[in-house]
Every structure is written in structure tokens, then in C-alpha cells.
């Protein structure tokens, strides 16, 4: 680690960026020294991705300056200009083409750019083998398709490719930005990734490591910068900071304990019970939700919390057993249509592709699941459908309440209210929610909360998957924290606060394993 007086590799000062009226970044400073692994931490919405996108030239900052190796660089950067500055990005999705070979993936940017005529595959494969060898990536065949590599090998390959591209541009002290490359990786072999990162730094480069995982921060980073609400909450020396201090910095000290009036939950009968549920990430989860209760499910990205609702609804492959009002169903053969048939409603998170058809009218969208009840003498009655849609629009405060409008013409919040109307009009026995107020303005958010509470008041059992701790604190009676696909903690109100949840989630990877059995007991024992 260099001292602050020496020349920084990258120095961002006073960066500001607003979207519409909302400030995403207000005066952010970031200083990365040569030869360090610098962590970038912060909750969702703290401004991390806006900062990275400004560096990548994707967003134009409103104010602020950027110096690279002491040289002032004019903002905004042109898209792609980061390469000339000696920066490389590896994003979570890795940007590899699975059907192409390792070699092809390694040289893809060279092929995309300047045309060089004939490709000599023998030479390229040999060169790729050398590169892989140099970074100790044995066991990867240059001509194997990337689809055949393990997740970990793919992540390593993406990082090696970024480093090689930097090296090809011949920068003495490059900066590699790793944007949560580890979120979906299995823990086994993660050491190799860390070793690769360390070897980069040993060669004189620096790494900006974006993550949620505080364990990884402790293991890998020299210093961290924490963002909170678009501002720098602080830059710290990791070796001299405790995990608790980091958590405090990430969530801030605003301990706004919401008084959550708990419904008489224990009295309600169990509406939804899941046993030994497994999916792609979810691994042996048990849970139960009572009538009138809201159970939150949360965790870090990659923990599987966002998969659970899909698996329980039958819309993603899973195994295990789900019991709705005492009747048991095998998840291996459970479909969305089965789920709807037994009184389950599901509001998916991805409004664009899963929840609403943008290019159809609001009427069509909200009556999708109830068409049969709008039959008149001569078949479907548009009048009845529109009247129903208008009535639902009124009840769920959709504005403008014009059912003939295309869904795409509504704002995000109003679309979400319409989606909620679609699923709540049938008075479901069980309501599954996946991030129900994502991308929704504050007013719509309150209206959506009100609609969900109204449903619980009439006895609906709600499971809400979310990474928005404020949302969880506002809605939930209990919250399960998942890590690596398993339930590691069960938090219970009253007085469940946003910060409590955030703290537990941020430290959940350390608790994984240790508390597993205890947590399972807590979950399956009825609350009282």
C-alpha cells in the first residue's frame, strides 16, 4: 500500500450524478493506489453501479474530476475509452460466449476490432495455452468450448482475458475492475481466483473489487471504500477494521426502528409449508407461512433467495414438497397452472419479461387469469372486462385509470399496481412476491404495501423475496436469511428494523454452516 501522498493510480474526486430528480452520486471520492486490492462496498442503490458505469463511460457525470496516474482525464469518458486508460472490467455475467472455444473467447476483442485477415488457429491455440499456463490455469483445454468449463474456470478465464487485454495495450500499472465476479461461484476453489487477483497485484497492477461479501473483503482487500446513499461513507484500512465496523459503515447509524404492528399471526392456520425444497441454488429449505402472515426471504445476491418463490410456484425446476392448506404437492411436477389452481398467486420481479405484457392493454393484462368469468352470451364481453379492469384500477389506485391504455404507457409503479391487481383480485390463499416494489416510486410503494397488508388482513399468507431491507422491515412478520442456498437465520419481529436485517444479511456468509441446524429448528417450530 502506498501512502496517500504518492501518486494514485486512479483518483475520482467529487463525482456527482443525478437521474431525473434523484441523486445517485453526490460528491463521491475514490482513490486507488498502485499495487492494492481496493474493495468497493455498499448496499443496493448506494451508487456502486453508477460509479462503475461512469468509469466505463456509460453514464455522463454531472460534476467531478478524474485523474489516472496523476494525469487529469476529461469527463465524461467516451464509451470504451477506459481501455486506453488501462482499465478493464469483468462483470458478473462474465461476457463469455459459451458455444465458442476458450481460445476464441480469449481473442474475441482482437477479432472484433481490427481485421487481420487469416486466423492461424494453431498459433492462437498455442498462445492461449501459454497464457493459461502462465496464470496456472491447468486443466483448461484451449479448444474446449467454454460451455464445458466449470463456473469457477469461466470466472478465471474472464479475468485472465481482461488482464491479457490490458497487457496487450502495454500499460505499466493497469486497473482491473471486478464487479461481483464471485456472487454465483461455489466456494470450492475460490482460493484460485483470489490467488490470480493477488498475482496481478504483485505484477504492479491494482484491482477494484466490488462485492457484498464481507468475508471476501477481509480475505482479499487492502483498503475499502464504502458508499452509502450516493456518498462516501468512508475509506478504511481492512486490517485495522472489524467486520462490525464495516457493517455499521455500510448501513449507517440511522437506526429507524419501525413499529410494526404484528397481526395475530400465531392464531392463523399454516397456509404454505415447504419441505426440503431444492432448486439451482436453493438447497434444502424448509419454511411455513400462516394465514395473515408475511414471511420475508432475503440474502446476498447469489444466495438463492430470489429463486425460492419461482421454485414454490413451479415456474423454475425444483424438487421437494410444497403443502398448500394441508394438501401436499411434489415440486418436481408442479406447474404455475397447478399453483394457480390451488390458490397461489405470484408477482414476479421482472416486470418487463415475466409479469406484464407491455404491448397489450391494461385490460388484457389484468384479466389474463380470470378470462372465464367475463363470458357473456356471445362469448367474451369486452365491456365486462373493461369494467372489471376499471374497477380494479380504482381499487389499486392505478393512474391514469384507463384500462384501454397499453401497459407500456404506464409508469413502473402503476404497472406494478396493475400486476398486483391481476393477482390479488382472486383473493389468493397464498401470495408469492418477488421484489414487489423494485423500480417503483415512493408513493406507489406505499400503495403497494397497503394492498399487500389488505390481503393479509383477509387471511392471505404472503411470502416476499426481497433484497430491499426497508421493504422487508415494512412488510414482514418474520424474515429468513439465506446464504449459499440455505436458511442461516430466522429474524422475528416485533421491531424488525431495516438495519437489523441488513446487518444479518451482510454477515450471513460467515454464519452459513454454523447456524444452519439451529436456524432450521427456528423455522420449523411454529411461532407463538
Amino acid at each position, binding site marked *: 500500500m502506498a501512502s496517500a501522498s504518492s501518486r494514485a493510480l486512479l483518483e475520482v474526486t467529487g463525482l456527482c450524478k443525478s437521474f431525473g430528480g434523484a441523486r445517485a452520486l453526490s460528491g463521491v471520492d475514490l482513490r486507488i493506489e498502485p499495487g492494492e486490492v481496493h474493495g468497493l462496498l455498499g448496499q443496493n442503490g448506494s451508487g456502486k453501479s453508477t460509479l462503475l458505469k461512469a468509469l466505463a463511460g456509460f453514464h455522463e457525470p454531472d460534476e467531478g474530476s478524474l485523474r489516472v496516474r496523476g494525469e487529469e482525464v476529461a469527463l465524461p469518458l467516451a464509451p470504451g475509452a477506459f481501455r486506453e486508460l488501462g482499465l478493464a472490467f469483468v462483470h458478473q455475467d462474465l461476457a463469455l460466449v459459451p458455444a465458442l472455444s476458450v481460445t476464441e473467447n480469449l481473442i474475441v476483442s482482437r477479432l472484433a476490432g481490427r481485421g487481420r485477415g487469416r486466423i492461424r488457429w494453431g498459433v492462437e491455440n498455442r498462445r492461449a495455452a501459454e497464457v493459461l499456463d502462465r496464470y496456472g490455469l491447468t486443466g483448461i483445454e484451449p479448444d474446449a468450448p467454454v460451455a464445458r468449463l466449470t463456473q469457477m474456470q469461466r470466472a478465471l478465464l474472464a479475468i485472465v482475458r481482461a488482464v491479457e487485454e490490458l497487457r496487450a495495450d502495454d500499460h505499466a500499472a493497469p486497473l482491473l475492475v471486478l464487479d461481483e465476479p464471485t456472487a454465483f461461484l461455489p466456494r470450492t476453489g475460490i482460493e484460485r481466483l483470489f490467488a490470480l487477483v493477488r498475482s496481478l497485484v504483485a505484477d504492479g497492477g491494482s484491482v477494484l473489487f466490488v462485492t457484498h461479501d464481507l468475508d471476501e473483503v477481509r480475505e482479499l482487500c487492502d483498503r475499502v471504500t464504502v458508499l452509502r446513499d450516493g456518498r462516501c461513507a468512508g475509506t478504511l484500512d481492512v486490517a485495522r477494521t472489524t467486520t462490525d465496523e464495516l457493517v455499521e459503515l455500510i448501513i449507517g447509524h440511522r437506526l429507524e426502528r419501525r413499529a410494526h404492528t404484528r397481526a395475530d399471526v400465531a392464531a392463523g392456520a399454516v397456509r404454505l409449508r415447504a419441505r426440503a425444497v431444492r432448486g439451482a441454488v436453493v438447497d434444502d429449505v424448509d419454511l411455513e407461512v400462516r394465514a395473515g402472515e408475511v414471511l420475508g426471504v432475503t440474502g446476498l445476491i447469489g444466495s438463492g433467495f430470489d429463486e425460492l418463490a419461482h421454485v414454490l410456484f413451479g415456474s423454475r425446476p425444483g424438487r421437494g414438497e410444497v403443502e398448500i392448506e394441508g394438501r401436499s404437492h411434489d415440486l418436481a411436477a408442479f406447474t404455475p*397452472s397447478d399453483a394457480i389452481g390451488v390458490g397461489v398467486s405470484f408477482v414476479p420481479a421482472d416486470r418487463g*419479461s*415475466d*409479469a406484464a405484457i407491455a404491448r397489450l392493454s391494461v385490460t388484457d393484462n389484468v384479466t389474463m387469469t380470470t378470462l372465464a368469468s367475463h363470458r357473456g352470451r356471445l*362469448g*367474451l364481453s369486452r365491456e365486462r372486462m373493461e369494467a372489471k379492469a376499471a374497477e380494479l384500477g380504482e381499487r389499486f389506485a392505478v393512474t391514469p385509470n*384507463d384500462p384501454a391504455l397499453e401497459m407500456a404507457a404506464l409508469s413502473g409503479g402503476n404497472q406494478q399496481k396493475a400486476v398486483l391487481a391481476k393477482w390479488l383480485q382472486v383473493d389468493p390463499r397464498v401470495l408469492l412476491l418477488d421484489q414487489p416494489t423494485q423500480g417503483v416510486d415512493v408513493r406507489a410503494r406505499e400503495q403497494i404495501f397497503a394492498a399487500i397488508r389488505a390481503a393479509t388482513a383477509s387471511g392471505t399468507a404472503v411470502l416476499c423475496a426481497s433484497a430491499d431491507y426497508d421493504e422487508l422491515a415494512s412488510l414482514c412478520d418474520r424474515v429468513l436469511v439465506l446464504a449459499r442456498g440455505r436458511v442461516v437465520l430466522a429474524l422475528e419481529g416485533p421491531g424488525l428494523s431495516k438495519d437489523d436485517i441488513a446487518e444479518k444479511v451482510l454477515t450471513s456468509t460467515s454464519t452459513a454452516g454454523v447456524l444452519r441446524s439451529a436456524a432450521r429448528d427456528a423455522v420449523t417450530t411454529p411461532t407463538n
Partner: protein
Amino acid sequence: MSSDAGPATPERAPVQEPPARTRGRLSPAKAIERFGLVAAWAVVIAVFGALRPDTFMTSANFSTILGSQAVLVVLTLGVTVVLTTGDYDLSIGGTLSLSAMLIAVLNAKHGWPIGAAVAVALAAGAAVGAVNGMFVLVFGVDSFIVTLGTGTVLQGIVLWISNSTTISGVSNTLVDAVVGSSLLGVPVAFYYGLALCVLLWYLFEYTTLGRRMLFVGRGRRVSRLSGIDVRRVRWGALVATGVISAFAGVLYAGTTGGADSTSGASFLLPAFAAAFLGATTIVPGRFNPWGTIVAVYFLVTGITGLTILGVQSYVQQLFYGGALVLAVALSQYPRRKELRDAEAG
């Protein structure tokens, strides 16, 4: 567009106070969009009528225009079914040929009763749709590729069962039923197309199945998460298109009194051109039966008029090919604009 006004849904019950875009009041821009093609059709008729009043503007000519295109009308309506659910069917031409040829071979060569031959032809259409559906839904192959292949296979089968010859002598019962009589001066074949149009309009506008087909075509994931059996709807649409294409083949055999092995292929492009052009009118942005009828007759009127003016027959290809590309470009335009607006916003 406002959700969907079929052309024949007259008055609406007053629902709340409707802001800008309900269908009672039609803004001029919307009216142009919806009825532009109808107006263009009228212009085409007026122009050719002025140029060749004694040949073009005759009831015989209009009777020919309306009656001779029943095969294309039916085939085009058939393909709108599968297009509505978001799949392609390029085997419709092959299915048409197979159906006509089965009737010719079974009835004219083997002396089967015409009713049985027609039944076999329609069943063959259903079988083609079922096979297409199997490859699309069980093996997950893109429908465009699957039906490109099966269409070619069907052409091969037609050549095989006909020994590459034209077969004539199909029972007069069928010929009479298709072109033997006329109503209001128009051959009865025209009314088969019209009847199918009304049937599909009812299906799309007034049945839950029609809605589900639209949902599946517009948003497969949303449909699946709403409990719709997406596979069954898509499969059903492929089978329906197969059967309707076979019905077009029945009309073809009835119109010509026989079958040949190549003409099915020549219907493929006009059908797609008319289907996409039809989706720009009446209910813009949606494959709809009335728009389809208007589009078919718009194209046919143009070609007939040019032929009367003495233009060479290659004009057909220019006209249909150009119409397909233009229609698709037109239908993409509003979406592209929206995308741009969304990105800017």
C-alpha cells in the same frame, strides 16, 4: 393502439370517464392508421378504373378478383393463426400442395369418394401441424427452421405420390361446391374465405382461447406464469394452421379440378405478404382477419390492374415481395420509435 376494437364491435358501454385513448372517439391519426389500407385499396381501384374503364371497371372483373383468390385468402387467414401465437409456418405451401394432390390421387386415380378424399386431405394437414409442433415444442427447434424443412419434405412427397405429373379429373361434386355457383354475382368460393374470416374474428375477439393465443404470442413467460399451457396453445395453433392450409388445398383442387406439384410453393410468399400487410390495418399491430382480407384484395387488385394495363407477369413477384418487406418495415416502425423514446427517457 387501444386494446382491440374489432371492426364490428359497434358501441361500448360507458366505462368510467375515458381519457385520451378509448375507442369510441377515433383520433384522425388512428383513423388513418386503421383505415389507410382500405383507402389505398379504393385509390388503386379508382386509378385503374380511370385508366381502363371498360375492362377493369366491370362486374365480371370484380367477380374474378373476389372469386379467384379464395385459396390465397384461406391460406393467409390460416397463417395468421400461427403468427398470432408467435410461431412461423413456412410449410403452408407444401401442405396446400399435399392436400390438393391427395384429393386428386385418391379421387381421380383411385376412385375414392370425394368426401373421403377431402377428409384424408384435412387429416393430412392436421398431421403436418402435429409434426411441426413436435419438433418445435418437444425438441425445441425454432419454428422457422422446422417448417422450412417440413415444407420442403412435403414438396418431395407431393412429387412422389404424383409421379411429378399434373393430375386432373377431380369429382365435379367438389368443383361445383367451390366454383359451380355464385351468390350476388360472386363465385361461392369467396364466401368460404369470408366464413373463415368471421370464424377467426370471433375466435380472436370473443373467446378465451383467442385471448390466450394472443397472450402466448406477445409474452410467453408472462403467459406461463399466468397458468396458460403455452405448449398446448402453440401446438394447437400449428395444427390449426395445418388444417386451414389443407382446406386451402381443397379449394384449390375444387377451383382447378385437379392438382399440380408446384403451385403450393407459389402461394407461400403472397400469403406472408398479405398477413403482414394485414397486420398494419384495421387492428394495427395485430394479425387480424379483416385486415388480412383487405390486404389480400388490395394486393390482388393491384396485380390485376397492372396485368390489364399489359404489364408483364414478373410484376407479381415485385409486388408481393415488395409488399412483404414494406409491411414488415411498417409494422416495426412504431415499435422502433417507442424503443428510442424509452432509451432517451
